[in-house]
């Protein structure tokens, strides 16, 4: 039943490696972009707050598929922006990362903001009453507590991101979902086996992440 695995015709590990790379690069990028967005949304400058809020609400309500397909049709095929790649697979890969970062950044932003919102105002007021400067209040009192509270929602975002990398198949990045579609076409008699293999692959990718961050969130939780 599983003999399609030995045929050497499909690069299963390679496909999951691409999925893992997509997830890793997008995770790093969206953490940076999401932090920048969160900084804007909590800043005292109204224009930055407005921009952050508008961006988050617009992009979060757009399907990821639309974002990624628009990256391919709009950026690559219309405007000729390929992010320095020449092969169509590489272009798909890089543009998919761009789309995933633009989309996932909004969720990272909201996770961080919800973390900041869990810090009671009294904490910062007490710190200010002790004479700490703005920078000290931020780095010594507010952010350490905010990051601890943000671990659990960030882990959810990370797991969702890993699953969302499959959308990159829509623009031809050679990752797991694309290979699964091809294999299902060719190995119709081993349908369930193919599905089982890919389901297992994704469980292997997401389960340890979930367990680790669940443990970390519990350990780091601020007892109030």
């Amino acid at each position: 039943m599983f003999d399609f695995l030995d045929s050497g015709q499909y690069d299963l590990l390679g496909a999951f490696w691409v999925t893992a790379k997509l997830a890793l690069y997008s995770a790093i990028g969206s953490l940076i972009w999401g932090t920048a967005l969160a900084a804007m949304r909590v800043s005292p400058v109204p224009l930055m707050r407005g921009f952050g809020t508008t961006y988050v609400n617009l992009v979060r309500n757009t399907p990821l598929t639309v974002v990624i397909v628009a990256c391919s049709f709009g950026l690559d095929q219309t405007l000729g922006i390929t992010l320095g790649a020449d092969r169509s697979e590489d272009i798909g890969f890089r543009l998919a990362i761009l789309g995933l970062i633009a989309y996932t950044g909004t969720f990272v932003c909201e996770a961080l903001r919800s973390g900041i919102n869990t810090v009671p105002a009294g904490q910062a007021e007490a710190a200010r009453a002790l004479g700490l400067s703005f920078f000290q209040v931020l780095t010594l009192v507010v952010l350490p507590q905010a990051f601890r509270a943000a671990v659990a929602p960030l882990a959810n975002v990370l797991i969702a991101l890993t699953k969302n990398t499959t959308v990159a198949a829509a623009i031809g990045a050679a990752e797991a979902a694309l290979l699964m579609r091809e294999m299902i076409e060719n190995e119709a008699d081993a349908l369930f086996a193919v599905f089982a293999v890919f389901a297992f692959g994704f469980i292997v990718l997401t389960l340890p992440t979930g367990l680790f961050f669940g443990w970390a969130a519990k350990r780091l939780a601020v007892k109030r």
Partner: protein
Amino acid sequence: MSSVLYDTPGPRAKRRNLLFTIGFLAVLALVAWWVLAALNDKNQLAADKWSPFVTDSRVWTTYLLPGLTETLRAAGLAILIALPLGALLGIGRLSDHRWVRVPVGAVVEFFRAIPVLLLMVFANALYREFTTVSSDFRPLYAVVTGLVLYNASVIAEIVRAGVLSLPRGQGDAAEALGMRKGQTMMYVLLPQAVTVMLPALVSQLVVIVKDTALGGALLGFTELLSQNRQITANYGANTIATFTVIALIYIALNAIVTALAGRLEKRLRQGKKSAAAVIPAQGGPADVKSDAVSGA
């Protein structure tokens, strides 16, 4: 305004904020200018690329509206099936009988861990191999099946968390009154849990609407997103304009879903003190409730 991070600004902070505003405005203007220049360079800003969406009703009647109908059909069917199924699975996970609790838990965890796209592709192949569903309807069936399996599991978790968040006394009191387990769930626990879990449920409905687009990109489902090829082919490669309009339709659709749910939530909460804290959304941040409407 003041927050945890900073006090109400004084004169010096106000001046500094003004400087930041000007600097940020300059950066925004630069980016906007760069984007517009790039678009103009490829002739994407020309009026005839954008005007069909306003002047030519056929863009709407032939492509966008039929696509939107398909999107709504898939999303509506998925929601109608996934909500009761999810509630059932959620209650099953809370069962006192191990032989119900354990298998239901396994099913929920399995379908939650798998990307919804894989489920759709698999369902599509299943329908092709084992059923006589005509190929016109197969993508719709596959999309709805994938959405239902995934979202029912997520909704099950929301329901479970909602019921568990209620104070123990609620269930105990119902039991003391002599209610059966089913009655306790139906008349005491679930009605209270619904108010608590509404924000999470709503963000899941938005996820369902958004995920219908997957079928358009990979299964040949003729929903809203998939119309972009037809439109760009018939109206002179107006890719940027088409994607802008399509994205705006999705955003409006999700804003309507969120707004309706916000009103429902208000009505449910009126004059009622909920016994428990609000359940955060799954797979997302804790406060994704009605931000889109309030603009908070």
